[in-house]
């Protein structure tokens, strides 16, 4: 039993050594993850989120970026726990007011 994410030792070719920018939405994903996992809320543990993206299947896993995986896994787990549904989330995003200064 070897998960598709368990790639230690697999051939990868040359590693691109370029510094990637940490995008604003990625910081927000990490901030939300920290809040959901902190010791007072304990809504989603790091291990639960990992189980989430390790259950995507290899196709979806390889298509998504690091933070996109985390975001999608958190939504899956929140849905699984009955906290929200994807439909509710989509509606909330649709209705959200654009923050000042954002384009």
């Amino acid at each position, binding site marked *: *039993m*070897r*998960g598709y994410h*368990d790639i*230690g*030792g697999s051939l990868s070719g040359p590693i691109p050594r370029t510094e990637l920018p940490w995008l604003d939405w990625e910081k927000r994903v990490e901030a939300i993850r920290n809040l959901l996992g902190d010791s007072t809320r*304990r809504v989603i*543990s*790091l*291990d*639960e989120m*990992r*189980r989430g993206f*390790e259950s995507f299947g290899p196709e979806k896993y390889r298509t998504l970026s690091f933070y996109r995986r985390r975001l999608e896994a958190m939504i899956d787990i929140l849905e699984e*726990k009955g906290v929200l549904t994807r439909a509710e989330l989509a509606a909330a995003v649709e209705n959200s007011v654009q923050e000042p200064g954002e384009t």
Partner: protein
Amino acid sequence: MPLFHAGERIRVLDLGKAGHVRIPAYVRGHVGTVVQFCGVFLNPEDLAIGNAGGCVVGCYRVEFLQTDLWTDYSEYPDDTLVTEIYEHWMEPAHG
């Protein structure tokens, strides 16, 4: 109380578990040396399915020779790799 102690030779089990596990495939079945007992922690395999009420398990730093892990690692025979292994993935190794 730790089951294993620094200096002991252990073999990493291959438990064939589905779900979230922390033991990478490349160390399973290999023999290494316990470097340090790190303490006891909730089992990440339980936490991954939302169970925070399970038993705690011991965790150890274990050192492997790179040449034991990889067939094509011959240039630096003294190189080692240290990784953390939970107690239920370990058995004593003899010889």
